[in-house]
């Protein structure tokens, strides 16, 4: 419908503007003219380094992570038919961070650059599979969220254990970075290795879109109108596992963006899960880039972590959505 298309176009333009803005702002402000010149390859060597090595990779990383988490959140909410479902709340992010921490702790990352994304994605998939199996057995979404809380706590405990046993302060601070979540000092390489997983996850989730709409009628109603429920579940799980895992391998654990953004988008697309997917991804990308600009430009002695800022904004929003949650107990 035109409604969704206009929204998508608008958000695409806004995305480009936000990325451009991320190149403008920072410790040394660059004027738009210098940024444009540099983007088209005619900048001074200094500007080229600032934009192509520092700001652009960081902004793109934030955008990719945001889009991945926003899309995962929207898809999980459609699958579980609950506005509170999100990779962070369901423990998927924490498990992915555990996978990444594990790989870092045992120095597995030195074997290949693919180890980190694969480890994070494995963690994410394990959590999504547990949630999905639970979703078949228990009908109550509250139980599911409690299982997510349990998964989160358990992953956090294991990460604490790894930190407890950390051989040296450097390993410790490395792991702490993953737990807090940040896109500082990301290069295009980090994106390159997460890229294929992001792309596959993105395509898979977009392919499940009509099935998510069908699930508006509940699982039995959706099967009644011809949805292959098993396949739908498996695809959403694999898609969100890939996206969340890849996002965590770039930025560590960043929560709540996947819950807030679809919540904003849904009323604009008449509460249709299918049409909320793409706009949620775009808006979450924009949101995370903006939050990262905030992190970079707020004067503070040591740089704020993006994950911390998102949690500070996101946790109260989560409580607010839960308190209004009409659909929580269906």
């Amino acid at each position: 419908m035109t409604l969704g298309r206009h929204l998508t176009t608008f958000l695409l333009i806004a995305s480009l503007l936000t990325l451009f803005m991320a190149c403008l702002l920072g410790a040394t402000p660059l004027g738009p003219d210098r940024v444009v010149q540099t983007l088209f390859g005619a900048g001074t060597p200094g500007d080229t380094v600032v934009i192509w090595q520092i700001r652009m990779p960081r902004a793109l990383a934030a955008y990719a992570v945001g889009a991945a988490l926003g899309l995962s959140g929207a898809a999980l909410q459609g699958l579980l038919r609950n506005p509170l479902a999100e990779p962070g709340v369901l423990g998927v992010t924490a498990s992915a961070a555990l996978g990444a921490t594990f790989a870092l702790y045992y120095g597995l990352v030195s074997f290949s650059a693919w180890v980190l994304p694969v480890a994070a994605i494995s963690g994410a998939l394990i959590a999504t599979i547990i949630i999905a199996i639970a979703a078949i057995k228990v009908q109550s979404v509250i139980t599911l969220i409690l299982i997510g809380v349990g998964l989160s706590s358990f992953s956090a405990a294991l990460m604490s254990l790894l930190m407890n046993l950390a051989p040296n302060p450097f390993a410790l601070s490395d792991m702490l970075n993953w737990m807090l979540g940040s896109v500082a000092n990301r290069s295009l390489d980090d994106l390159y290795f997460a890229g294929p997983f992001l792309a596959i996850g993105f395509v898979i989730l977009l392919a499940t879109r009509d099935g998510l709409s069908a699930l508006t009628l509940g699982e039995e109603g959706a099967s009644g109108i011809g949805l292959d429920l098993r396949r739908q579940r498996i695809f959403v799980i694999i898609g969100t596992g890939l996206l969340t895992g890849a996002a965590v391998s770039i930025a560590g654990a960043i929560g709540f963006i996947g819950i807030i953004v679809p919540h904003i988008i849904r009323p604009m697309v008449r509460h249709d899960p299918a049409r909320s997917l793409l706009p949620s991804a775009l808006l979450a990308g924009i949101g995370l880039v903006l939050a990262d600009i905030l992190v970079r430009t707020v004067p503070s002695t040591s740089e704020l972590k993006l994950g911390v800022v998102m949690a500070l904004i996101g946790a109260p929003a989560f409580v607010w959505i839960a308190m209004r949650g009409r659909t929580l107990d269906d």
Partner: protein
Amino acid sequence: MTKLVASNLSVQTKKTCLLDDVSISVQSGELAVLLGPNGAGKTTLLRAITGLLKPSSGGVTLDTRPIDALSPKRRAQKIAYLPQTRPLAWPSRVIDVVTLGRFAHGSAIGSLSDDDQVAINAAIQACDLTTLQHRRCDTLSGGELARVHCARSFAAQTSLLIADEPVAALDPKHQFKIMDLIKNYVANGGGALVVLHDIRLAATYADRLIWMKAGSITADGPPDTTLTVQQMADTFGVKARIENQNVIIAGSID
């Protein structure tokens, strides 16, 4: 002409037998009503014959083809199934819910063919939803919501409709309205199998009554022959008087 035939269906869980050797058929042009007390296995039977539940033994064929050989979408193009509980996860618009009825035809909101549009408009008109089509479903009354769900199953343009208590919790007027819609659907060539708890309503509308108790079918035939005092006592455990097509239930037997 479409015919759904179930032969010797049994559904067994670990401890209990939900369906015991049940054979039943539904075809175009007839309105069959399934009657039975709570827990008789009516919903299990509907789920089994629509292919949503795999029976422990026995088989279901749709126009002589085994139903499990059809993909979920192909099956849903032939049979519309209206489950007993009809939750709506989101506060969707009426028109969007009716559009979901076209899912089996590969259609989605925003990408509708002319056929889809015609089917949706016809369903909305048949169910008298024209003025409500842009309303959010969470603002509708129970009767209006029941019409929305009927409309979405009609929009699928299937040759069979299987409905599990479509008039539950509706006031008498709306019960008649919904049954009129289903009767009209049958008059236009469809075939329907409907679970009802109101015997009088069943006797008024049904071409055939199918009586179920404890996982088995105890009688299957037109109201004239199967609606008897004895049948009411055996199936529901109630004392009843039957005058013409009017059933008066005097009370429980024990």
